[in-house]
């Protein structure tokens, strides 16, 4: 923290300039040749391009390049660069809040507390447990129970227990590290939310039963293609992937089961070690991503609720419990504090692997 404080002191002089909306002098003098923003592929990078990057380039004249390196793979590269005092490989990292928090704990992220648009965001945009603002949460998303309509002629499933139904043997899918599923499995396995992280045995018991179902394990784009190719009937995945399959004409729906579903957030952060002018424009990019205009376009593309009040939800998601907008919606979702995720999620991944690979 001492390091972060001194860093902030050094930057204090630049703050006043950054608050002003792109003064002519800066626009003219210090533009970098391009900004590099790490992103996820598929529907994710598409909506970022349309909602944030293209409008940003139109305003500033700075081209934005998207680096599709996996979030998990870019992290050690950034850490190594900061450790060795080199310039980091990207300007802005679009990241899961949990991973972003790990980088923040390591002290490799710039403080973003001085960004003007942050004041207009919901309180959840600021990460808890830090003095400053080492990252900004941009939107939330739900790990829903997605299913093929055809497999449920008698109506949608209402419980995660459906994954254990013998007729779905070999036709259930999860993320390959079980991300987003551990808390839901805890409740579905008869455990209590309060016991996370100290007693997760009910979750592991549920996952062990699920292992006997021969589940498929994959990453974001896998879910969409598995639904398209008829490989699976049910899955625990982020709403956006199921919605992408549905938009391509596959009869796929989703639900928040009675046990609830994990809600999480993604954010953005800027690695330390950028030259002064590049840091300035990277911050302007993140600031722009929080603007009303960018939030509306970007999060509608994703089908996810942005963390800025007053956004209009996409038509197909109005009233959808997986697109939480009211306090009642949020009450049905399971929100695990980032602090716990940062400390324990690696163990959960390992435990999940242990069961699945055994």
């Amino acid at each position: 923290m001492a390091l972060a404080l001194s860093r902030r002191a050094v930057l204090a002089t630049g703050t006043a300039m950054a608050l002003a909306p792109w003064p002519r002098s800066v626009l003219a003098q210090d533009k970098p040749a391009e900004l590099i923003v790490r992103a996820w592929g598929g529907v994710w990078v598409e909506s970022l391009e349309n909602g944030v990057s293209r409008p940003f380039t139109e305003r500033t004249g700075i081209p934005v390049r998207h680096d599709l390196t996996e979030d998990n793979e870019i992290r050690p590269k950034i850490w190594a660069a900061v450790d060795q005092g080199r310039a980091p490989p990207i300007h802005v990292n679009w990241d899961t809040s949990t991973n972003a928090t790990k980088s923040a704990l390591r002290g490799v992220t710039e403080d973003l507390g001085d960004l003007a648009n942050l004041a207009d965001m919901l309180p959840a945009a600021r990460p808890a447990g830090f003095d400053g603002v080492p990252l900004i949460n941009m939107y939330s998303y739900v790990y829903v129970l997605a299913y093929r309509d055809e497999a449920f002629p008698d109506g949608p499933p209402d419980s995660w227990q459906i994954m254990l139904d013998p007729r779905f043997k070999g036709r259930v899918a999860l993320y390959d590290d079980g991300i987003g599923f551990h808390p839901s499995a805890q409740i579905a396995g008869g455990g209590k939310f309060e016991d996370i992280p100290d007693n997760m045995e009910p979750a592991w018991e549920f996952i062990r039963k699920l292992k006997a179902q021969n589940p498929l394990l994959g990453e974001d784009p896998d879910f969409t293609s598995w639904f398209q190719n008829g490989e699976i009937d049910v899955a625990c995945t982020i709403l956006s992937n199921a919605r992408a399959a549905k938009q391509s004409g596959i009869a796929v729906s989703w639900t928040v089961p009675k046990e609830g579903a994990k809600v999480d957030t993604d954010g953005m952060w800027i690695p330390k070690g950028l030259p002064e002018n590049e840091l300035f424009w990277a911050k302007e990019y993140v600031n722009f991503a929080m603007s009303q205009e960018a939030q509306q376009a970007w999060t509608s593309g994703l089908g996810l609720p942005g963390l800025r009040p007053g956004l209009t939800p996409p038509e197909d998601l109005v009233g959808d419990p997986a697109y939480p907008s009211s306090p009642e919606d949020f009450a049905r979702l399971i929100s695990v504090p980032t602090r716990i995720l940062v400390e324990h999620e690696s163990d959960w991944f390992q435990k999940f692997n242990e069961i699945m690979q055994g």
Partner: protein
Amino acid sequence: MSRSPGLRVLDALEGVRATLWPRPLAPLTPWAFLVPALLLTGLLVAALVPLADASLRQLDRATFRLDESWSLANYAAVLARPVYGVMALRTLGGALIVTAVTLLLAFPYAWLMVRTARPALRRLLLISLFLPFFIGQVVRAYGWLVVLGQQGLANSLLAALGLPPLTILYTFPGVLVGLVQYMLPFAVLMLAPALTAVPEEVELASAGLGATPLRTLWRVVLPLARPGLVAAGVVVFTLTLTDFAMPEIMGGGTNDFIASAVYDAFFQLGDPGLGGAIAILMTAVGSLAVGAVLALFGLGTLGYVEERR
């Protein structure tokens, strides 16, 4: 005397060589040719050093940095977790099965390719051998998804015949099928020269002396092709042992090989110490296995020494 331009270029190069590398240095020439290979090998060994160093340092979850001091904690963690044993056994067993099946399929293929009197057949065999090389492992794996998927070609065919669908994709046998198909060209390419070195007359002689074709295969062709078989086996075994893409793509996530565990440790868990420990252990096991094979069959099997006139 007029000489072709090509010969003149060669003569000019020879002049340059004579200046840079005068005759007294000639005894060193074989070593000079080895320099690039030694450099590459040296680089690989050098890359193992930081890996080994990381494997001796534990990750601090508070800062996500490795410890300053050395310990064997990562190795203890690897050995304490049964899942790594399961994955290591799956990888070793898979590599053995894939090696055996690949050699079994590659041998007749290479034999036919070398022995056939029909040029058209040889060309067909060669083309089918090289085509997959141009396609690459990942695309081929996706090709298998198209063929073996629930609604893939194989199952459409079975359905048309009124048979129940086949579930091979996303199972362990499915991974092995993909690996065998991937490894087959390597094995054939390493076996073909070894079989070319076995004169057809020797096979005829054996038959004339009273050996049935199977006995000729066992007593004459296999022993003479041994260098090729050992080389192909070692290559297929080590490539399979370290393969990542095929189990990832065709295993459906629950049939990972040990390389996936290294990847997960590095990237999913962000723990280079643990990843390093798994990688070092895996390198050790692989080297031991290859060393044992070479010790058993003699280093000469790779050098084609002796036995050739």
